[in-house]
């Protein structure tokens, strides 16, 4: 829950800074910088707990996936979401205590939480201390490279958030899955 709020704050302040204009701004530039930095730091701390927690406890097993038949399972879940769920079919991969996520959910969570979120957090941390960024990385300006990575991953994670929030409404009732966001466990539907 706290992560979702932080992500929203980071999104709004990030967009406000990126599309800053002299006439209209969502958040005042200097306030946006401070809020963005502060929320970013809290999110980094949260991520470190998430990462260590999943690395050393059994909760990490939910994020482990098998490479064989992955494409087939993803396809099946995509077909369910685009077709099956509309026709009230039963989900192909029911959720239980051993499987917290369906294959598509698991795959996107892994991509977001283990690739794009770390990229945003590391690049964001580097931008907090820009003097540490090398002048050039792979023959391009280091600052530009890091900034580009930060914005690109920010965009991807934001898009993920929209879809993620929408998919929460696919539950017994449109609001029931929001409870899972708070307690972290999915109910079967």
């Amino acid at each position, binding site marked *: 829950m706290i992560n979702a709020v932080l992500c929203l704050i980071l999104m709004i302040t990030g967009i406000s800074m990126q599309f*800053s204009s*002299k006439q209209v701004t969502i958040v005042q530039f200097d306030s946006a910088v401070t809020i963005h930095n502060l929320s970013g730091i809290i999110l980094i701390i949260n991520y470190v707990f998430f990462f260590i927690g999943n*690395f050393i406890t059994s909760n990490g097993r939910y*994020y482990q996936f098998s490479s064989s038949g992955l494409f087939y399972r993803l396809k099946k879940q995509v077909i369910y979401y*685009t077709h099956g769920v509309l026709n009230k079919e039963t989900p192909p991969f029911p959720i239980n205590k051993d499987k917290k996520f369906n294959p598509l959910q698991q795959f996107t969570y892994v991509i977001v939480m*283990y690739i794009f979120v770390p990229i945003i957090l590391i690049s964001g941390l580097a931008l907090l201390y820009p003097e540490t960024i090398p002048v050039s990385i792979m023959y391009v300006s280091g600052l530009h490279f890091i900034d580009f990575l930060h914005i690109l991953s920010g*965009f991807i994670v934001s898009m993920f958030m929209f879809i993620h929030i929408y998919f929460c409404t696919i539950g017994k009732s449109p609001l029931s899955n929001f409870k899972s966001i708070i307690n972290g466990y999915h109910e079967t539907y």
Partner: protein
Amino acid sequence: MTHEVYIRPSWFVILLIVLVILVFVYSYSSKVSSISATSPVPAKTDSISMHEFKNAGENENCLKCHGQSKYVLENIEMGKSVFKRMYSELIIDRDLFYSSNHRYFKCIDCHSEDYTTFPHPNNLRMESKASCIDCHGGDPQYAKYFFENIDTGFQASVHSQKHSQDFTCWMCHNPHTYKINARTNENITKTIIYDNNICLSCHSDYRKYELLTEKENPNILSKHDWLPNQELHFASVRCIECHTKKKTDSALIAHQILPKTKALKNCKECHSVKSELLSTLYKYQAQEVRSTGRLFSGIFTSDTIVIGAARNYTLTWLSIIIFIGIIAGIIVHACIRYLKH
């Protein structure tokens, strides 16, 4: 039987961190080796062919004393000669002079012919020096540099207003070393350092500052405490971007230095779509880069980055289209779900 491989995604993060460390180590090690590869002592006159300068021989009459840190003072009657130190501000570096814009001049083109006698007559210390406009004003050859506008701006500047005649062009521009810079220097960072050093030559050096005023020289660092990432701002932005009144679209520098109360202090003046920084140097540099036909000029070529002002419209539109696509997909999906309910 298929062999199942379980992928543990934590390793992605560890791999990413290792990759980041490697990139940093590689970038820093290549930087260190490039620094150590350059000679610490700049090459002396080798690079300059003295044959090119027909006045060089005559100038040596002056430079034999003023081109070094000591000179010989002889008293024929006493039959005695002593070595004296030359004041550092009176030393002319031959290399810098013969690579400057004024390199073809004779010393006495600008200085009184009376300097040819030694010891120099005392009243020459009161010699009034020519300013830029005295030579460059009204000259069609130099019309593109708008010296008249520079002079008008300078006259209205806080420097000229507060110090009147004492503050001359030469306070900032050394006529013996001045070299046109922004137009010939492809590296914007070097231009920024060059221009900022002009301001800092007084504002961070009390010995020069006190020549004009009794006031205490303000501490540049503490005065700019409000700037986040101060070091980065100082390395990437010229002092004059915030401290001058400018409305030009070229490499021409606004010379109307404003009083400190009128300096820009609002982030959005620079960090916004109509950034003040996108005029003058940065615009000029961007145009130059584009004219060379280099690709991706908007994304990666510049060494500096201005959050809020650096826009890549292709990527912005692409992201808006993707965003609209996703929202439209969600709406369509939700509508079908609702209708089939």
